[in-house]
């Protein structure tokens, strides 16, 4: 693999008839990183994943996964990747154990190794007790865990996770996120699509924001947030406010320099000047130092600014999917 690149995409384009689903996208995913693909429904996330895993053919452009060309070396690409599709596509009438065994055989894992891995994964995903049961009796969370286990059965280098926590309850989502973090620690490269902004922020080393088939930006969550200018604020909270401090705060509030919100004060403009003013009064009054912390713009704000899609719309989409 060249320069530690796990996935390389160049000018990838996909048309469905006249509909341009993916529009000349370019990106690289480094080995061992969690790369997030964040965007609203219909942005082109799933189409991109389908192309990379060999379930769709690009209209133009090319990509390599683990150093193999997706079109000319698709079998090698498939051997080196694990996929967690958007829906848990497993065989409902088979038990968890048989599902893992069957999928392992499709990846040419030898029976003794497969037995060992199946036991290990069932243990690891807390499924051994239910493993003889047909998976149609499983909850959505259990099926999701098993789908991730199935993606790992052949010990792939790279994982493609398409909305891995969509429709899961808080606890199941949390457990799955922990597993994903652990996989990264074990050195797996993870390509993750999501429209859960919080999830992207918590898990990803870098995030590509995609909308209407185009990648709008690629950066770390921190840098993406810092791209949203003018939204920084300083939050000041007092244990006890003397009349003089209150008077100074009221003056600043009335001029709109600071905002009072649930007993806290948010300095949103002229941050350093206003902070100095407050601290001067605090010092003069010999009052205890207030709690001061910087409020950075959220990834959500960065996302909204870049895509013009509100976080509420994204949440509705996610609820729609889980419902």
């Amino acid at each position: 693999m060249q320069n530690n690149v796990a996935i390389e995409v160049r000018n990838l384009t996909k048309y469905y008839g006249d509909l341009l689903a993916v529009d000349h996208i370019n990106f690289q995913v480094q080995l061992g990183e969690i790369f997030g693909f964040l965007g609203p429904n219909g942005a082109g996330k799933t189409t991109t994943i389908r192309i990379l895993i060999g379930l769709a053919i690009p209209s133009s452009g090319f990509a390599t996964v683990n150093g193999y060309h997706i079109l000319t070396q698709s079998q090698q690409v498939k051997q080196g990747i694990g996929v967690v599709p958007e829906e848990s596509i497993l065989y409902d009438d088979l038990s968890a154990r048989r599902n893992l065994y069957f999928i392992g055989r499709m990846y040419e894992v030898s029976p003794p190794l497969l037995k060992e891995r199946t036991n290990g994964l069932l243990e690891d995903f807390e499924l051994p007790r239910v493993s003889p049961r047909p998976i149609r009796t499983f909850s959505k969370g259990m099926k999701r865990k098993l789908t991730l286990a199935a993606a790992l059965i052949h010990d792939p280098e790279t994982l493609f996770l398409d909305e891995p926590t969509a429709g899961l309850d808080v606890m199941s989502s949390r457990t799955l996120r922990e597993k994903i973090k652990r996989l990264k620690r074990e050195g797996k490269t993870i390509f993750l699509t999501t429209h859960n902004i919080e999830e992207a922020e918590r898990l990803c080393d870098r995030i590509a924001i995609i909308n209407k088939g185009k990648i709008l930006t690629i950066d770390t969550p921190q840098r993406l947030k810092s791209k949203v200018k003018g939204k920084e604020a300083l939050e000041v909270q007092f244990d006890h406010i003397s009349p003089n401090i209150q008077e100074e705060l009221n003056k600043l509030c009335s001029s709109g320099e600071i905002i009072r919100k649930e007993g806290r004060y948010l300095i949103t403009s002229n941050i350093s000047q206003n902070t100095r003013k407050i601290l001067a009064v605090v010092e003069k009054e010999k009052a205890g130092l207030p709690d001061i912390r910087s409020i950075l713009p959220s990834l959500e704000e960065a996302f909204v600014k870049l895509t013009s899609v509100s976080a509420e719309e994204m949440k509705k989409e996610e609820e729609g999917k889980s419902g």
Partner: protein
Amino acid sequence: MVKELIKIYYIMAKDVKTYYFKPPNLIMGLMFPAVMIFTFSMRGIRDIMQFLPGLIAMTTFFGASSMETVIIALGRRDKSLERLLMAPLAFRTMLSGKILGGMAFGLVTTLILLPLGVGIFSLPIQKPLLLAVSIVVSAFSFSSFGAFIGVYPRESWNAMSLGNLTRFPMVFLSGVFLPVHKMPFILTKIAYFLPLTYSVDLMRSATINQGNILSWHYSLIILVLFGIFFLWISTKLIKRWLI
């Protein structure tokens, strides 16, 4: 090659377990041919001797093709075919596994009804080896045909309708009820393009020694070619429609 064969075997075994050998499906697979056999037996023992070989071919035909069509359509809809294709698996391998599952079902339904025909109606078996080979080759050809019909529809009910729309006319045109040489000229020509025609003729040769379309060697070769053709065209089509 060995790796491919192993995958084909596991796909077949999975399909057999998850779809085919469930009591309702087995009953459905046996019901129609059994009803036909008993209906014809009402007309007398001489008539049933004429029809039984064709009915055996028809049993293999329905068994190997009908569920197969629905299972492939279902696999497109519930994306279980996609799940298979996420693995390093050629389309041909995937369909071969599916076809082997259909074959197994066709063979089992035939092997349940065949002893009935032999036992109850004293159907003679003049060439047992030819009969065995004919049943296996027919099952392959019909299962491939079932796959071909199943690759287009996305809904199982659509697949069922399309399957019946092609299967029933084929039964009437292939000499199951009326020998091909007694049919009107144009229908005779159509019959030559239908795999069931050759299967019926083979079954007649192997049992009552009355095959009359082609020598059994050619009939077997033609059935194999039909099977390969349907596998090839189904692979092309499913590749086009799935990705």
